[in-house]
């Protein structure tokens, strides 16, 4: 198999990139290990922020469907049930239908997303303790209830949104606990659940989960300024599920394997590949976009993906430089607005990468 651009991951970043590149004339393959494309979009049943150009007010599931149609209409090949287990220079090693194959590509975009972090506490391995994203998958995608009474650990956007969605699916969320003194996610998401009676217990953490072969009781307690549980403040919740929403880490294995240079930026989820304005890493011809380049949100993943797709198209000669710069400028303006909010991590990353920018520029031009 041979393509001009191979994109690993059919989530918002990968699909957006594929659309832009294919529209420019690039022969593109999007490869995804799952049976269905869309990444995590098909479990995002809420309306997205942003403005019209970001598809604001549209639910993630519908954005997923839109992207998929656009990709198909643009002539993108989407290879499903296909795992990329290695990248060896310009060869992607793929596994599908129990066969190993080579897929050669002139440019590679790694858009593999992120995986959920977890939290270890006594009882965290009991059946019924699971990732908040996992709960969202089970409930919204597979339509099965993961529990009747759920405790949510973590008040970032994932914790808040999933709490709301668990309620929409008929579960009862007994509380959201947050070990910091302030709520992590957007306050409107918080207000959406507090007015339905879910208490958000800031400065609280989970102490343990007990039960006979399954989750039965979750104990939470208030923490002091050293984040230690204040004895006597413990209280028990009778629950049958505990969801962990304590952040995500970039799924950057393939970028490591390519030899990309990394930087540790905790606010972006940990080790992230260094990239330039064109989303190109320190390895020429290898691009990153979406959560793998720093955990943010689907809206920003789509913009970064689009930029990466355009950049790959330009470097392959399908766009002339000025045309590309114009298109990129447009995308960047639409990106900038996400860098002004409280979650302006990408701007911070850009600042941190700045001292490498000169070098990165050179790489991208070779």
């Amino acid at each position, binding site marked *: 198999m041979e393509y001009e651009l191979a994109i690993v991951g059919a989530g918002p970043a990968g699909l957006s990139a594929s659309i832009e590149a294919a529209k420019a004339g690039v022969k593109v393959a999007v490869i995804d290990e799952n049976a269905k494309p869309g990444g995590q979009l098909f479990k995002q049943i809420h309306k997205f922020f942003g403005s019209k150009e970001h598809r604001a007010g549209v639910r993630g599931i519908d954005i997923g469907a839109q992207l998929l149609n656009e990709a198909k209409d643009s002539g993108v090949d989407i290879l499903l049930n296909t795992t990329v287990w290695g990248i*060896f220079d310009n060869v992607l090693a793929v596994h599908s239908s129990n066969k190993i194959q080579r897929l050669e590509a002139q440019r590679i975009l790694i858009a593999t997303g992120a995986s959920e972090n977890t939290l270890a506490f006594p009882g965290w391995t009991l059946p019924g303790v699971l990732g908040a994203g996992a709960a969202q998958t089970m409930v919204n995608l597979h339509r099965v209830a993961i529990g009747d009474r759920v405790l949510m650990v973590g008040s970032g956007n994932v914790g808040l949104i999933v709490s709301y969605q668990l309620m929409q699916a008929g579960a009862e969320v007994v509380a959201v606990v947050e070990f910091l003194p302030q709520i992590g996610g957007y306050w409107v998401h918080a207000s959406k659940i507090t007015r339905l009676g879910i208490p958000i217990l800031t400065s609280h953490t989970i102490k343990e989960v007990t039960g006979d072969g399954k989750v039965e009781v979750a104990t939470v307690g208030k923490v002091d300024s050293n984040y230690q549980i204040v004895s006597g403040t413990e209280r028990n919740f009778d629950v049958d599920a505990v969801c962990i929403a304590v952040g995500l880490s970039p799924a950057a294995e393939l970028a490591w394997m390519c030899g990309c240079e990394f930087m540790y930026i905790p606010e972006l989820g940990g080790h992230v590949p260094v990239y330039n304005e064109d989303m190109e890493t320190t390895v020429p011809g290898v691009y990153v976009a979406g959560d793998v380049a720093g955990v943010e949100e689907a809206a920003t993943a789509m913009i970064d993906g689009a930029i990466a797709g355009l950049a790959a198209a330009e470097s392959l000669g399908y766009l002339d430089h000025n045309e590309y710069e114009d298109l990129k400028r447009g995308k960047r303006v639409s990106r900038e607005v996400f860098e002004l909010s409280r979650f302006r991590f990408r701007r911070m990353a850009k600042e941190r990468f700045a001292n490498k920018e000169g070098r990165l520029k050179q790489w991208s031009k070779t």
Partner: protein
Amino acid sequence: MLGKMAKETEVVVVGGGIIGSATAYYLARAGKDVVLMEKNELASGSSGANAGLTSTTWCPPGPLLQMSMASLKEYDYFSQELAWDIEFERCGRFTVCETEQQFEEMKPFVEVRNKGGNSLRLIDRNELLELEPNLSPSLFGAVFAPNDGHVNPLYAVYAFADAARELGAKIYEYTEPVAINAEHGCVKAIATNKGEIKTKYIINACGIGAPVVSEMVGLKIPIIPNREQMLVSEEMPPILNRVIINAGYMKDVQPTGLGDSAARKKSTQTVGTVCNQTKKGNLLLVGVNDFVGEDERTTFESFPAISEGILRVLPILRTYDVQIIRSFAKFYIYTPDQKPILGKVDGLEGFIMASGVNDYGICFGPIIGKLLSDLICIGETTIPIDEFNLSRFG
């Protein structure tokens, strides 16, 4: 490492792999003031990325065979006396023959080694399948080495380092030598990125980095890296009781066994089959070897190459759809005659070589540590190591 580095010691061991940590342990046990320094983390080189095999099978009669057998005894002692479970087991090893010709070739191989003190045994297909029912019935027979086995190489390094530390050795990670000071043909001190240490002895226990350290005293040593690629399977229920290696691999890759080392060096790539099931249940599958400098990347081609060989020997892996979860590449510490470089160095008092252990460093680590400790403390070794002196390369 917290605190300041020592200013003075008796022995500095450079290289925190199995050789270095074992050497530090035996020296500390003998009462020496010893510093172990490692430029990265302990076991971050070849010692941390190999199949953990402890084998006597390949060793020709003489010091190598003596050393391998003595090293297993050290492991016996060590795995019983210390707190760590280093997963050392004399589980036995089959060198399996796929053809009658291979089997025939093994007869003199076994005879010579048994005369030298080993206790190998040729077994036929029926006995082989009785002992290892999951092996392919198409195999012809095998050489059984009852004393061979495996160890968890990472745990072994950590355990030796821990034990050395407990006996007073000082261990500095992220500490890299930059220069060696010698006066009147005598080692005086070693300068590192963290400061200088005065010392009487410097033991070069590096792997592929050994030439860099020797270069500091103007010594050229003929070590080159030979990349070895390995695969790791998911955790499986026990499907193997012993280590499996195919005779072809012995011939192609194993040093000083049946192989023609000159031919091997010329050939760009050799593919063999070694399978070792760890205590946890993962299968370690070896390997593809080639000379590519210090390129540690794995190659696409190694996967089908290793898998094919292993499936011929262990078809059950196909039946159970065993998944490969990882791969990695590391280096043999290759020498032209595939013998180690051990002992004092002519013309430079206090500088001792402990490198060039090819692919048998894990097996030989304890005995090399013990012998070098003896060399420093009592001036002689229980097993002669003269033939491993650097001077043999002229």
